[in-house]
C-alpha cells in the first residue's frame, strides 16, 4: 500500500539551528496517523514543511506515490492537503464566517454569496458542539481560546480534501468538544481521508489512531501500528527516543 502522503529524508535548518534531520513520515488513506514527540521535537516544523510554509533544505515530499514540490500553501491546498496549524492563523479583523471561507469564498457571479456561506458555516460549527458562540458574525478576536480553535478546525474540514493534518487540535477544548473532535477525526478517516493528528494526550492518541510516528529531537524515532505498542512504550519513545527494540539506533531509524 502506498502512503497518500510521505516525506523522505527531510532536513530543515533555521539559520545555524538544524531542526529536522532526515525525517521520514507516512500517512495512509483511511487511517489516522498520530504524530507525537516532546515539546520542540519538530512536529509543527514538519507540518509547516509539508504545508509549503517553510521551504525544505533537503529530502522530498511524495503525494500518492509521486514526488511533489510544495512551495507555497497554495500548492498544498491544490494537492488537497488541509492543515490546522498550532498557531491557528486566523485573521483577527474578520468574523467567523469570513475566516472559515477565507481564500475559497463562495460567489454569486462577481459578488460574494454571504447568505450561503453563513448557512454552511452555521451548520458546520453546530456539528462541533460550540454552544457559547453568540453570533457567527462575531470577530474572531473576541473569541475564547477554545472557540478560536473550533473555528480553525471547522475551517479545515469544510473542504473536499484528501489529507487533513491537525496540529494539537484539542489543546484548548473542553471535555465535550474534545470528544466531538476526536469523533470527527475518526469519521474523516473512515470516509477515506488520510488524517494526521498531533497530540500530547496519549489517551486521545490511543483512542483514535491507527499508526503512531514519534519524533525525537528532530529525528524519526519510530513509525509503528498503534495496536503493536503500549502507552508506556510511546511515552518512552517520546522522552528518550527509544524503547527496547524500537527507536533510534546510531541516530537512524532501523
Amino acid at each position: 500500500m502506498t502512503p497518500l502522503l510521505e516525506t523522505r529524508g527531510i532536513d530543515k535548518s533555521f539559520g545555524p539551528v538544524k531542526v529536522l534531520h532526515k525525517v521520514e513520515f507516512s500517512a495512509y488513506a483511511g487511517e489516522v496517523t498520530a504524530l507525537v514527540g516532546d515539546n520542540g521535537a519538530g512536529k509543527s516544523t514538519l507540518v509547516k514543511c509539508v504545508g509549503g510554509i517553510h521551504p525544505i533544505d533537503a529530502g522530498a515530499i511524495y503525494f500518492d506515490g509521486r514526488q511533489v514540490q510544495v512551495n507555497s500553501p497554495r500548492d498544498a491546498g491544490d494537492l488537497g492537503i488541509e492543515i490546522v496549524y498550532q498557531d491557528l492563523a486566523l485573521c483577527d479583523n474578520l468574523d467567523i464566517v469570513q475566516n472559515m471561507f477565507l481564500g475559497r469564498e463562495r460567489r454569486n457571479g462577481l459578488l460574494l454569496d454571504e447568505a450561503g456561506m453563513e448557512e454552511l458555516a452555521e451548520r458546520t460549527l453546530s456539528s462541533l458542539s460550540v454552544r457559547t458562540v453568540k453570533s457567527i458574525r462575531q470577530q474572531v478576536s473576541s473569541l475564547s481560546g477554545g472557540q478560536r480553535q473550533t473555528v480553525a478546525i471547522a475551517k479545515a474540514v469544510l473542504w473536499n480534501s484528501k489529507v487533513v493534518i491537525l496540529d494539537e487540535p484539542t489543546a484548548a477544548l473542553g471535555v465535550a468538544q474534545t470528544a466531538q473532535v476526536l469523533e470527527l477525526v475518526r469519521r474523516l478517516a473512515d470516509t477515506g481521508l488520510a488524517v494526521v493528528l498531533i497530540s500530547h494526550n496519549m489517551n486521545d492518541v490511543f483512542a483514535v489512531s491507527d499508526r503512531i510516528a514519534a519524533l525525537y529531537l528532530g529525528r524519526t524515532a519510530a513509525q509503528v501500528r498503534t495496536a503493536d505498542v503500549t502507552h508506556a512504550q510511546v511515552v518512552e519513545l517520546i522522552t528518550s527516543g527509544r524503547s527496547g527494540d524500537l527507536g533510534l539506533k546510531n541516530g537512524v531509524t532501523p
Partner: protein
Amino acid sequence: MNQVKELPGEAVAAAKQSPSLGNSLRGYVERLRGGDMGALPAVLGLIVLCSAFAAARPAFVTSINFANLFTQGAAVTLIAMGLVFVLLLGEIDLSAGFASGVCAAVLAVALSEMGLPWYVAVAGAILTGVVIGVVLGTLVAKVGIPSFVVTLAAFLAFQGLVLVLVDEGTNISIRDPVIVAVANKNLPPWLGWAMYAGCVAVFAAVQLLRARNRSRRGLAAEPLSLIGARVGTLALIAGLAVYVLNLERSRNPALVSLTGVPIVVPVILALLVLWTLVLRRTAFGRHIYAVGGNTEAARRAGIAVDRIKISAFVICSCMAAVGGVVAASRASSVDPNTGGSSVLLYAVGAAVIGGTSLFGGKGRVLDAVLGGAVVAVIENGMGLMGYGASVKYLVTGSVLLLAAGVDALARKRAAAAGLR
C-alpha cells in the same frame, strides 16, 4: 430547592429570531455604547467643526459655500479613497500626491500639446496610474523593499517626471470644456433630482432584496421597519442636499445663474459605491482585509498575497490619477506643483481621521470620504476666517486636533465600555 429552572439562553436565541425594529434600534444603541461606533465619531467631529465655523462666520452656511465644499475637497478625497486600499494592507504610498501630478501632467500634455480628445487624454492619465501602481506594487511585493522607501523614492522621481512633462516649470493650461466642467460646472437641477430618485430607489431595492433572500434561507434578516427607517433617513438627507444645491447661489443672478449639484458629487458617489462594493462584497476585497489583518494567515489560506498587494497599489495610483484629473480640472491648468505640497499628507490624514488604521486591516472607503470632508471643511472654514499666514497654520493645526480629539474621546469612551 431541587426545582431546576431552564437557564436563559437569550443571546443565542436573539440572534436566531428575526429582530423587530425596536430590537434593532436597541441593538444599535447597545453596539454604540459597546464601542462599535462605526462612522459616528467622524460624523461627530464633523458636526462640531461645522457648528464652530457656522457660529464664527454666517457665510459658512450659505448654499454657495456648501457647493464650494464639494469641489474644494474632491481631489484630496479621491486620492484618499485609493490610499485606503494601500493602508488596509498596512503599507503606505507617499507618492500618491505626485502620482496624481504625473497623471494630470499626462492629461494636460495629451490635451493641450497633442490636441487629443478628452476621453483619450483621460484614458492616458488612468493608464499612467496603472503603470505606476504596477511598478510600485511589484517593488514592494516582489522585491521586498519597504513601501515607505519605495514610495519615498517615487515621491522624488515623480517630481522630476512632472517637471519633465510640463517642460521645466512652465504651466500648461487646460481649455477642454469637458475636462474643465468636471470640477467647475454643475448638473442641471432636473438631472440632480433624477439621480437622487434613482439612487434612493436602487438603495431601497437592494436592501429589500437582501432581507428577502436572507429570511428565505432562514437567516437573521433586518425587519422591514428598520430598512424603511434607513432608506427614509438617506432619502431625507440626500434630498435636502440636492435641494440646497439646486438653489440659486450666484452673487449676481442677473449676470450668471449658478445652480445644481456639482459634477464631482456624482463622480465621488459612484466611486464610493464601486469601491465599497469591491471591498465588502467581493472575494478580492475580503482578501485585502485578510492580508492587512494577518498576512501569514492569508498566505496560509492560499491567497496570492503578492497579487493582492500589487492590485492595491494599482487601485491607489488609479484613484490618484482620477484625483489628478479633478485637480487639473479645478485649476484648469497643470504645473510642477500639481499634487505637491500638502496634497499627500491631507489625503493620508483624511483616511486616518476617518478611522482607517495605518497598521492595516481596518478601514472603509467611506472613512476616506468622511475624513476628506473634515479636511475640506477645515480648509473652507479657515478660508472664511481670514487669518494671517502664521495664525492660519496654528489655528488649522488646532482645529484638526479638535476634530480628531472628539473622535478619539468618543472611541475611548466606547473602549472603556469593554470592546477594544
